[in-house]
């Protein structure tokens, strides 16, 4: 999926997967928080440590979760701040072209992968994409 003209705007490694993450996948939802976020969020979250944090996702970007690549269809208003400040992202497999909630990152309907410790979480942007430098 990665072409030479693609830049990585966010890259991270999974450090912990909460006990309730699988239950949330059944709702088409995958929640990320940075390592070091409050303990009460750990059950529902994939925790991770970012090595690259340049920008939040935009429509047209690709989110890579483990071996799965997903096109970003829509992004809510607070997504960028959430990701860059808190390492927080709500990935929703709802197929929407308009985010329903301000924290949503919408991708196609269908299964989201259950991540494991050591998997990568990455957002890439192709150079020809609207909004790229």
């Amino acid at each position, binding site marked *: 999926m990665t072409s030479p003209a693609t830049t990585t705007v966010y890259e991270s490694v999974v450090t912990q997967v909460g006990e309730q993450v699988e239950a949330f996948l059944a709702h088409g939802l995958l929640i990320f928080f940075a390592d070091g976020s409050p303990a009460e*969020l750990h059950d529902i979250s994939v925790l991770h440590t970012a090595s690259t944090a340049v920008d939040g996702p935009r429509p047209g970007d690709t989110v890579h979760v483990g071996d799965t690549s997903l096109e970003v269809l829509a992004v809510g*208003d607070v997504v960028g701040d959430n990701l860059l*400040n808190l390492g927080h992202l*709500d990935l929703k497999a709802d197929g929407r072209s308009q985010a329903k*909630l*301000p*924290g949503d990152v919408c991708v196609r309907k269908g299964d989201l992968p259950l991540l494991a410790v050591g998997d990568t979480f990455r957002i890439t942007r192709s150079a020809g994409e609207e909004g790229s430098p």
Partner: protein
Amino acid sequence: MSDYKSVTVSKGRGGWGGPLTITPTSEKPLIASITGGGIHPVAQRIAELTGGEAFDGFKSSAPFDKIAVAVIDCGGTARVGVYPMKKVKTVDIHATSPAGPLAQFITEDLFVSGVKTEDVQES
């Protein structure tokens, strides 16, 4: 400080739930700011008016049973449910309504949203 005062937190424009009355106690003195970029002004104002102790939930952790109120800047899915699920009163800066897998826990007596500093008033 043992004399705590109460504040009423009302929903802001486009918000949902509440109003909540927040009264810290010596058992629950903490105004938890579970927000990006330090202690949020809404948490700071609640702390100043009540005499509670504001703290940054992303810098330090505290047991749930010490938290009088959690101030969050949640985009609608995760944090909106986690604190109400634990019966912790929750104030969301963003104007969200109950949604997500934890929506069942988000009730008007535990949750208020769309809150700005002017929506926090002495009771």
